[in-house]
Structures are given as C-alpha cells and as structure tokens.
C-alpha cells in the first residue's frame, strides 16, 4: 500500500469527487501512454514479436531471447472464416483466435506459441499451422496436474521451446538474460497485484473494466516501459475511504477479454472487485523465485504458485484460492462465466456450485458464446441475481446480529 494515501475524516466526503476524477484521469493517461508506445513498437519493429496464448506459456523464455511477447486475443463478432476450418462445437475464444489470424489481424507476428492446455487448443495448433501459420510455430505442452511429479514434463517443455526459439531466431537465451526476464515479469506481476489489491477497499480506485484493460496491456506491451508507467501511475493513485452500497462481485470462469460482461454486471449496483480469469489474477498472481535456478523457479511458478485454471485437474486448489479471494475482497457473490463448449469450466461448474453452496456464497452461472449476442437475457439474469444478493446481504446482517448462520441460497 506504499503507493496509496489514505484520507480520513470529513475531508474524504469533500474530496470524493476530486479523488475519483484524478484517479480516472491518471489511469486514462497511463493507458494512452502505453498504447502510444505499442503503436510505435509495431510501426518500428526493433525486435521480433512472438504471439502467445494461454497463461501457462512462460513469457520469461520469450523475453530472455530478446523477443517481445504478445498475447493474442480474439475479437467479438461473426465467425466466418474459422467455421470453414474448425468444427462449430469448439470454444468461441479458440474459434475467434483463428478467425482473427485468418483475416490477417496477426500478420505482424514473427512467431506463435500455443499452450496445449485443452483438447481445443491442441487442435487450434493443427489448424493454425496449416491455415494461418506464422514464420515460427510452437505447441507448448502443459501438464494438467498440480503436482511435483509433473515438473519434469514442464521443464522439458521449456527446454524444447528454448531450443526451438534459439534455432529459429538465432538469439541465445543465457542465464543472465533469463534472470533479467524473470525480474521484469515479476515486477509486472507485483505492480498489477498492488493495483488489483487497491480494490479491497470499499470504493475501489480502479474499475474492473480498467483493470482488465491494464492487464491486457501488460500482456502485449514492452514490459519495461509498461512497468515504469504503471509504477508512476500507482504513485499517483489515491484511495478515498468512501462508503459504498454496491454488491462486491468475484468473476471467475472461462477466458474473458471483452469489457461488456463487466459493464453489464456493474450496471446493476455491483462492483467486480476481482477477476479469477486468465486476463486477471491467473495472469499476475505468483512470482518466480529469483534466488533459485531459473528454469526450476519458472517451473515451480507456473505449476504451483500460479492460481490454477480449470484446465488443471486441481479443483481443491482452485476452490481454496477462490474462497481466499472471497474473504480478502469481501465478496458478496460469485459470477461463474462459461464460454459455450469450453469443457474445463463446463465440467467444473457442478463442483464449484456445490463448493460455494457449502460456504453459503451466492453464485450465478452465465454462459456466453464469446459475443454479446445474448446480452438482453444476461442482463435480466444479472438483475435477478442482484435482487437475490440484496436479500442475502440483508439476511446476513440480521443473522450475524442474532448470532445465527444465514440460510443457503441456490440460484
């Protein structure tokens, strides 16, 4: 919290509007600067750019080879070209990635690393290679189990990726370049965590939409520049200790990089205070130990320290992590978002619902197709959920006064 100032007493009411406006303006300025730099970076390429998808792909290796890691993301809209090459019953995000590649959105990439996290992404690689190929293509194999026994598998994946990158780009990955890359990535993660943690306050100084945008920028920008700018932003951020009646929401589930879902949630007197998403906490929580042998440390970070996604066969770790977030961020309700055909989350959902029910945490399940097509229906369901939260919150207060545990609610 060293970057934040706490204001107390009557001043906060007076300064409320000013503080919020100042924060917003600082964030806007930060985003403008980073985006401007990104445009320059793409226009005057000084280093190769490597596309990647899946948060289990170690960016450190790419950076250590003097290459800029660039997370590719899809774009909402009709899927026309990808339908020709992939079957229709595959996750919309995967289809959208291929759609963007086929229509030339990623022509600037010098290479692509696809994380083999699910059956769908393994197959995306086959189609990518044949129909959208970049000069360098690599399928990064990921063990699906959080256990020491799979370290060897992940280490071998790193070694193979390093060898192929070195052979293709002619750039050597040395121990010192790897250590420097680890330090840079750790700094990005630390700064993002600090920014996200500011939302533990009742009135978060950064909205979920902006947090999402910043996290996405972290994945596609020159990391050193990004870190400097974010550090400067954090020094300007101020927290106003203002009361808020908004429901505090944790969003978890499938890949989500579009702000429309967050906007829809927050239209209903709710605040998304943390996102257990691949474009959220699952990207930046967990540091690589800088005092350990680099490959060993990277392996440990990605297999054990990083919050697991549902693709890892590790429901207990996921559930514990989410419950920890619920307590830390004082969450009133959880929204579980699933992309249609995204199997890991579709299969996980019944267990997660049971878990949250056992903890008396209200939960809403939303299924989308990576587009805004069903927005009307989703908005209605969100409104109903917020009504339930109002009821639950009231009962929670009442029950606490009486020293009773409030009743479970199933939605």
């Amino acid at each position, binding site marked *: 919290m060293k970057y934040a100032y706490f204001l107390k007493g009557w001043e906060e009411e007076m300064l409320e509007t000013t503080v919020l406006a100042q924060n917003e303006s600082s964030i806007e300025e930060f985003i403008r600067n980073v985006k401007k730099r990104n445009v320059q970076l793409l226009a005057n390429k000084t280093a190769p750019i490597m596309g990647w998808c899946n948060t289990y792909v170690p960016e450190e290796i790419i950076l250590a080879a003097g290459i800029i890691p660039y997370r590719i993301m899809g774009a909402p809209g009709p899927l026309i070209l990808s339908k*020709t*090459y*992939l*079957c229709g*019953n*595959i*996750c919309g995000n995967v289809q959208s990635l291929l759609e963007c590649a086929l229509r030339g959105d990623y022509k600037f990439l010098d290479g692509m690393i696809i994380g*083999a996290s*699910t*059956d*769908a992404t*393994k*197959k*995306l*690689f*086959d*189609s990518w*290679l*044949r129909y959208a190929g970049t000069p360098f293509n690599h*399928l990064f*194999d990921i*063990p*699906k*189990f959080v256990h020491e*026994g*799979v370290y*060897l*598998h992940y280490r*071998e*994946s790193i070694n*193979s990726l390093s060898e192929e990158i070195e052979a293709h780009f002619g750039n050597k990955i040395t121990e010192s370049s790897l250590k420097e890359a680890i330090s840079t990535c750790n700094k990005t993660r630390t700064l993002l965590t600090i920014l996200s943690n500011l939302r533990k306050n009742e009135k978060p100084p950064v909205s979920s939409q902006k947090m999402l945008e910043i996290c996405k920028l972290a994945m596609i920008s020159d990391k050193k520049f990004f870190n400097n700018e974010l550090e400067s932003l954090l020094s300007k951020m101020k927290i106003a200790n203002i009361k808020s009646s908004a429901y505090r929401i944790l969003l978890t589930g499938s890949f989500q990089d579009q702000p429309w879902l967050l906007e829809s949630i927050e239209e209903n007197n709710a605040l998304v205070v943390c996102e257990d998403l691949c474009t959220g906490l699952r990207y930046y929580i967990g540091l690589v130990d800088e005092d350990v042998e680099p490959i060993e440390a990277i392996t440990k970070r990605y297999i054990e320290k990083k919050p697991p996604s*549902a*693709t890892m*066969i590790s*429901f*207990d770790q996921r559930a514990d992590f989410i419950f920890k977030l619920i307590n830390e961020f004082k969450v009133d309700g959880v929204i579980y978002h*699933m992309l*249609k*055909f995204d*199997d*890991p989350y*579709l*299969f*996980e*959902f*019944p*267990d997660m*619902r049971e878990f949250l029910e056992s903890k008396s945490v209200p939960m809403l*399940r939303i*299924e989308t197709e990576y587009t805004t097509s069903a927005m009307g229906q989703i908005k209605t369901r969100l409104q109903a959920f917020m009504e339930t939260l109002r009821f639950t919150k009231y009962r929670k207060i009442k029950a606490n006064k009486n020293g009773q545990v409030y009743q479970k609610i199933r939605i």
Partner: protein
Amino acid sequence: MDKFTRKLEFENLWGLLKQKREKQTSPFYTLKATKLRSSLLGRLFRRAYQKDSVVAWRSSFVPSEILFALNIIPFAPEGVISMFANSHLTDEILRVAEDHGCSRDTCSFLRGIEGSVINDYMPMPDFLIATSMYCHGSAQVFKSLSKKYKKDFFYIDVPFHYERPYAVDYVAKQLEGMMKKMAEKSNRKFDVDKLKQTIIYSNQARNYFAKVNKLRQNKPSSMLGGEAIDYAIMLAHTFGLPEMVEICKTLYEELKERIDKGIGAVEGEKHRILWRQLRPYYTNALFDYIERTHKAVIVFEEANCVYWKEMNPEQPFKSLAKKLLSNYGFGQVQRWLDFTSSFIIDYNVDGIIEFAHWGCRYLSASTQIVKDKILQDKNIPILVLDGDCIDRRDYSDGQIKTRVDAFMEILNRRKG
C-alpha cells in the same frame, strides 16, 4: 460408503434394466468370437458389482494389463454408458446429469457417467484412473468423482509431444508408481512377474488381432463393420487376460475360414468404407443401412487399429508407456493423417465415413484438415455425419439416411 453399497447399486441397475430396457437385437453379431467377447465383458461387468472385488474405474487408454496383474477388476464407465445407450437407458440418465448442472454441450459419455453416479447405478470404485490423452474431460470427471467416493485418483500424465526422449521413462515411472501404490492400498502383492505374464497374454492377443486386421483387407470383406466396431472397447479394456487371447484367436480362425470358403460379409460388395470415430450406440440401423442396404461394407474402423508394437515383457512399464505414446490419434494431426492414408491403401477404400461425436472437441476438430488432405492427396470422398454416440434426442434417422444416400451416389458415380 462401504462395499456393501455395491449391492444397492446393482439392485438399482437391475431394476432399471428390468423396467425400461428396450432390447435391441443386433443384426451384426454373427461370429462365435463376438459371443465370447460379450460373455467376457459381461463377466467383468458382474464382478465389478461384487462385494469383495477391488474395482478400478479406468478411462480409455489406461493399461488394463497393470490391473489384471494386481487382480483388480477394470471398469470402463464410458463403455458401460455405451451399453446403456444400446438399451435406450440413457435418456433418463442424461436428464439427471443435466439437472445436476452438467451442460448438454459436454460429452454425453461423461455426462452419462455423472448421471449414473447420481442415480447409483455404477459400482463403487476403489480407484479411479485417467490419462491426459485425448479426453481432458474424463480426467476432470474422474477426479471429481474420486472426491465423492473418497477414493484414490491416479492421473497418468502423457506428454503430447510423444516423440521427446524423456517421454517413455516419464510415463513408465508414473505407471510403476501407480501400480505400487495400488498394490499397497489394496493389499495386493506388487508382482512384476505377474505383470510380465499379463504382457505376454496381451502380446498374444495383439498379434491375433493384428492378423484379424490383416485378414480384413481381403476383398470381399469377411466381417461387417457393424460387428467389428464394438471390438474397439476391448482393445483398451481386456488386454492382459488369457480369455482375450482365445477371443482374438477364435476371431482370426473364423475370418480365415470365411475367406478360405470365399464367403463375404455382404453378398455383392459394392463399396469399401473406412469408418472414423465411434458409432451411435442407440441404433443399429445406420450400419445396417450402409452395409446391407447399400452394400457398402465398412472394411475397417480406425478405432480397431493395432497401433502399438509387441511389448517386451522384460521391460513391462517401459513397454506399456510406449504403447500409450504410440497411439495414432495422440499428437499432432499429421500422425493421424499418416495412419488414415495407410488404411486407405491397405484396405482399398472407396470412401470414408466419420461419425463426429458432438461432445468430442479433440476428434471432431481435425475433421476439416483430414477432409482437405485426404481429398487432395488420395482423392477419396469423406462423409461427416455430425451426431452423438450416446444422446439420441437429436438423432434424425431420415436426415442421416438422406446424407448416406447422397454419399453413395457419389461413390456410384465415381465407379461409373
């Protein structure tokens, strides 16, 4: 849950079978080996419900040889769901799973398992084992069920880059560790000699089955695809048993006899079809229509491919690891394409039919690449039938038959 509950599960299942079963008489079971196969699977199925059996639920590809070496009964829930579908028992089971929160977009084999567990139809496992091959969902479901049953879950992590030098030892070590732990937990002896013996049986059965596949290259085809495709489940489930050797030997001898006598599976064979993926288990009409009505014999099913080499009993774990890693569908699509291309030549194929199971992203997502490459390189037409192997609610017999008719017209025209 104690072992006594298996009685309850069996009673539940028995009640279901008695009340609602719609018995389908298969028009395909013409061979003695097929009857032996059904009898063996039936025996294993019944033993899985016995109070004193040690039962391991295994997802596809988990090596059964290890389980037989420990005298543990393998139980393949996916296979059992296909059996339920065959008797039209899955409608209710799938509905129960969906009510429980399972999405209808997920694989119906796995949804069926969840529904059957909720309804207490499945025998309580002592162990649950899954691999990282093919189906990611099965590992998730097994892990979840292991928690429900409070039983040990084993996960065999098989590297997708099967060719990397560390892969064999990495998988072998996991298999050995699993066997040791299972032996310890079930008070069985970790007996490598017994494992070697199961590998010897497995090799013998493998060799007969490979010979069967070779015989099926004969023109006219000696075996109907409708009968052969159900052998696929055995390929994973019963290797390591001496009975399996007998079944494969019988099958080989029966087909050889048919060939020697000049008997074809279908009189007047017109077209030779290669079948990709599995089949709709709730109907026999599709295969019957293709093979008997159109005289287009399914000469080979990829699921029946003996893709692995004979194993070395002296290195049981390494051999089993190699078997897992040599699966043609595992790895990048080019590996599978190479197999398909060789089947086209070996079996003198005129056309390919693929039944694309709705819930399977892994198998269905490669379809377009296969279509492009096979058409381009081999000039063989492919019919892709989108459907579901278990869930019959969206199956439209008329539509499917219309598409089969159109495909047969293409094949007829190509033959002039």
